[in-house]
């Protein structure tokens, strides 16, 4: 079908959500570099950070083809209000329990979203979605390993993980804040929508949590933390952006 302006706006909104989530969480993950509880975990979070930032670049490049600014400018020159990332990804890394649960919730969202997009009518998005699936597989596998191990571990470890599972539930549902273009996205075959994604995600993570021995949040009564997709962020995002862009702002025209 022929795309109208609203279809293109919907597509851009979808791409910004995905790219901004990956850039911001990629940056947060990289904060574990040098601080991981064991060397392998240090490397794991650093590798996942690298994957995510690489993936965000591929998505910003598609946005550039759609007439948006070039990736470096988009990544480094916007203020917090211009970011479409959900609030879950911008929070500081906190303790390892929080970072692991965020990783588990986010990466299943990412894996299912890419699965839904592997047959999108937008060809460049279809190609990157197929590419990312193989990479994200390693992320969900890593999350599963730790959720399983800590779910079967000491009383303290399990209790802390369980608390993080409950505490992050509302933030996780915030990933699925509806876009203003849900109808346009689904009718055109671009994307089946946030609601469909949420349904699959709840089914998947609930099954996993149960298998790992955790109590599952009562999703129907959890209040989603919305706002991120519309540019409303916590006080934690702007300092992250200031730090991330510090070098770039010294000399935006520098050749690397």
């Amino acid at each position, binding site marked *: 079908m022929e795309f109208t302006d609203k279809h293109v706006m919907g597509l851009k909104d979808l791409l910004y959500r995905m790219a901004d989530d990956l850039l911001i969480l990629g940056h947060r993950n990289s904060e574990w570099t040098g601080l991981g509880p064991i060397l392998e975990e240090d490397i794991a979070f650093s590798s996942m950070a690298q994957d995510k930032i690489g993936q965000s670049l591929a998505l910003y490049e598609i946005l550039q083809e759609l007439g948006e600014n070039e990736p470096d400018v988009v990544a480094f020159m916007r203020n917090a209000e211009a970011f479409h990332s959900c609030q879950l990804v911008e929070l500081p890394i906190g303790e390892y329990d929080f970072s692991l649960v965020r990783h588990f919730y986010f990466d299943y969202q990412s894996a299912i979203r890419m699965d839904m997009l592997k047959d999108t009518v937008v060809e460049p998005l279809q190609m*990157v979605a197929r590419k990312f699936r*193989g990479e994200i597989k390693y992320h969900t*596998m890593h999350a599963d390993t730790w959720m399983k191990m800590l779910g079967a571990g000491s009383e303290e470890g399990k209790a802390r993980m369980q608390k993080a599972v409950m505490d992050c539930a509302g933030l996780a549902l915030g990933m699925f804040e509806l876009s203003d273009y849900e109808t346009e996205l689904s009718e055109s075959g671009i994307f089946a929508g946030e609601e469909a994604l949420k349904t699959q995600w709840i089914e998947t993570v609930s099954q996993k949590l149960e298998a790992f021995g955790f109590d599952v949040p009562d999703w129907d009564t959890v209040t989603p933390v919305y706002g991120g997709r519309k540019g409303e962020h916590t006080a934690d995002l702007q300092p992250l952006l200031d730090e991330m862009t510090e070098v770039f702002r010294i000399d935006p025209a520098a050749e690397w």
Partner: protein
Amino acid sequence: MVSTDSIKSILENVMDPEIPTISIVDLGIVTDIQVSPEEEIFVELTPTFSGCPALKVMEELVLEAIKNAGIEKVKVETSFRKQWNTNMISEKGRQALLKHGLAPPEKHEGYIELDVLSDVACPLCGSRNTTMQSPFGPTLCRSIHYCKNCSNAFESFKPVT
């Protein structure tokens, strides 16, 4: 006379900057070579991983190698059009990985689970009595393993779908 085959043989001598025993052709990342009637060359590369930092370097190596062969009009592009997976590594490439001390990735059927990742033959002694320590290694494409037979740690080029 420039042909796609002659370009390919030039690229067979362009090595992966992170694994200098394997050429980019054997690695499977050269997804298209075109020669126009005016002898303009187009080479398409595909990333192993989206966040692979070696990619820009490889683009430059390709440009340089072709120009060194006396061909001036060359365009190199990176694209996700054809997505790379580890089944695209040639048999020669798998041997080259071994030579570098890396266990080659197991062939896959488009689906990877933990037990596939853990079942890797040690590149040093050949034993399969090994365990995976971490699916993430010193570069995005490697995992870390331990051989219980010869008591050595080793790396594997991890399978990607």
